[in-house]
């Protein structure tokens, strides 16, 4: 899922203070599953903002609404009425959702309430870890399904470097050395010889370095 973290109350307050009527718009997909922007988080944030502004003698009118996803018009349009009634939208979706809302409702300021961080998994309850950097040309088959581009801090394809210590990355002892994981996985699979082969320099042309990417499926265009 896409993982994100809600911005601090301080930062959000600063962004929304000037709008007397605010819509907090949640998203029921990725940000719900990482507890950053689903219906519950919308309710909590609305309550926190009301209390915080009331304490300063300000009255903010907050409407709360959550749609299934903010990255597809089918769901975005359900928010039309609510958006029309408010001076600004605080979207708790990922960065893509915020932009899609703003694209459709472009006469109203649409503000991000969440910092979108990474594509990841729920490794265990409460722990989300980054696994994929959407490079566009997946090479997990070579590396026993452990991604060196995302999980090695130096993106080594012929790793490891000399810095790993007891299986942890030199930059942070909380992070596993991806190459340690790759070696262990390939050992289990009996494929350690994969690593004797030289992996040549990668083309980064499938990634974001070439600019924002598009996927057009002609068969789905009516």
């Amino acid at each position, binding site marked *: 899922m896409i993982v994100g973290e809600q911005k601090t109350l301080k930062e959000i307050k600063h962004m929304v203070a000037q709008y007397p009527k605010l819509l907090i718009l949640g998203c029921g997909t990725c940000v719900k599953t990482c507890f950053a922007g689903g219906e519950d988080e919308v309710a909590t944030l609305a309550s926190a903002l009301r209390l915080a502004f009331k304490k300063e003698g300000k009255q903010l009118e907050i409407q709360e609404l959550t749609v299934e996803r903010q990255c597809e018009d089918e769901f975005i349009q359900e928010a039309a009425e609510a958006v029309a009634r408010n001076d600004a939208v605080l979207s708790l979706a990922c960065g893509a959702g915020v932009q899609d809302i703003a694209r459709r409702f472009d006469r109203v300021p649409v503000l991000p309430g969440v910092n979108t961080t990474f594509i990841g998994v729920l490794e265990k309850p409460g722990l989300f870890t980054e696994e994929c950097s959407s490079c566009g040309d997946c090479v997990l088959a070579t590396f026993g399904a452990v991604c060196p581009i995302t999980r090695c801090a130096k*993106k080594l*394809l*012929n790793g*490891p470097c000399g810095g790993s210590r007891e299986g942890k990355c030199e930059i942070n002892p909380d992070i596993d050395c991806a190459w340690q994981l790759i070696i262990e996985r390939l050992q289990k699979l009996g494929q350690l010889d994969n690593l004797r082969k030289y992996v040549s*320099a990668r083309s980064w042309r499938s990634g974001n370095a070439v600019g924002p990417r598009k996927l057009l499926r002609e068969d789905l265009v009516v």
Partner: protein
Amino acid sequence: MNMAKQSRLQQILAKGHFAVTAECGPPRGANGEVIRQKGRLLKGYVDAVNVTDNQTAIVRMSSIAACVHLRQMGLEPIMQLVTRDRNRIALQSDIMGAYSLDINNILCLSGDHQTFGSQPEALNVYDIDSVQLLHMVRGLRDEGKDMSGFELDTPPRMFIGAAANPFADPLEYRAVRLAKKVEAGADFIQTQCIYNLPRFKEWVRMAREEGLTEKVHILGGVTPLKSARMAEYMAKSVPGIDIPDSIIERLKSAPKGKAAEEGLNICMETIDELRQIQGVHGVHIMAIENEGKVAEIVGAAGLMPRPEFS
């Protein structure tokens, strides 16, 4: 046409001499005199000098510029190049530029991560890794082509080096990694500093078994320890450093004020041992910010005078 001399380091190793290299770091500023002063301390005592490339991701004068300062004084530089800060376009460009300025030794590294350095907010590059860099430099040299296949007017004829860490995890994999670097293009290897000789010898043995000591010149790294505290700090904080308790004990038990002297003794003993290991063809003395010690070490180890060529 570029008439750069053949690498002196290459000649020394080819002739079977036990090579001596040292290391120095460029200044944190634009004063060339700082690097020249270090050069003066090393000249005549070493065969070649590594010049680090923004080591530990701390911003310093560029390696290529500092190498030129040393070359102009008659020293033999080994330009260190990391892939952390430059993409393949910039790396190939710098390699060609370096060779045109009479720099003909290069050490290919990935480089310490920027989070360690003085500007951790910076974006890193890591377009290619150190093994791909080795491959690229060899391609430039032996095929005279850049990474796009374009034929260069003059190929940079670099003597190519790589780093190796016999003490890093995972141990079983270290020989495979060394083999990869040799196959990719490494002519010589400089290792991380050695304190655990049995473990180092084991690594050389594994390399020998893979046939690698026939294909590459290994230079063993040494760094004189100044105190037990320095040793403990290094053992704890620097990845890939293995300092046996016996060494730390020797430093602790040294009489007051004599720890540094004991550290030098340990260094001498290590060099003596290195000279006897089959497959080890030189020593790489890393006395960063302590370059004055290099002359003393080389002299006391019986490695003077250094070979001269016309």
